[in-house]
């Protein structure tokens, strides 16, 4: 073993625990379509549900800050993901709720243009979806 390969190996060994601590789903977040993002999340073909609530303005004047409040009343909801269909990278966030947390989150997102926003909740191991269109007057992804 050369000294260089030994150093490379050490680097890999040292880098690994850090990667485990902070998981970030590169496949899903790197997806350029909502369908690929869903696949990356392992939540393909979600069933429409009325038990997922999306509170958001119908028209957002400033696409740089669009407030969205989401919650699920589906029993056994363990995660909620937000997908902004027409953003360059649609998957915006995935929230895992453990025992002790309600499946609720409020956040501000950037939207490049008017788009459907899909909220995907996993409940009892199955994916469900609700969709809401938000119109954007001034896009908020460049600058």
């Amino acid at each position, binding site marked *: 073993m050369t000294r260089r390969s030994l150093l490379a190996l050490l680097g890999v060994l040292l880098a690994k625990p850090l990667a485990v601590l902070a998981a970030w789903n590169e496949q899903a977040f790197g997806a350029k379509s909502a369908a690929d993002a869903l696949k990356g999340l392992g939540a393909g073909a979600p069933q429409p549900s009325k038990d997922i609530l999306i509170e958001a303005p119908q028209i957002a004047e400033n696409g740089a800050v669009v407030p969205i409040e989401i919650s699920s009343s589906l029993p056994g909801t363990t995660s909620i993901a937000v997908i902004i269909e027409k953003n360059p990278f649609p998957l915006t966030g995935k929230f895992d709720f453990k025992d002790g947390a309600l499946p609720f989150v*409020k956040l501000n997102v950037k939207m490049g243009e008017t788009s459907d926003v899909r909220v995907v909740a996993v409940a009892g191991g199955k994916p469900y979806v609700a969709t809401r269109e938000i119109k954007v007057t001034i896009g908020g992804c460049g600058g």
Partner: protein
Amino acid sequence: MAGPMKMRATLAGGNTDVRVLMTHPMTTAQMKEGLHHIQNVAVKQNGRTVVEAEISQAVSRNPVFTFRLKGGAKGDRIEVSWLDNKGETNKIETAVA
């Protein structure tokens, strides 16, 4: 450099609402500053992880989140931490008021 955070945890309707602000540029690859965004957020209640989130560059600059925890009592310790794509990290702890 990791900027300051602000957090408020209050009892409301029998649950605990946690509102947290993170100072962070949250820039996308299209911006001149280049890709720099928070990737991971974790919420702990009395030392136990209750919410784990992965987020993208499409979360607005200086992210503000509200989370809702079941039940809770005055004095519960709430901690929120984040980690970004450059390895920077920050956290804040407060007691439920």
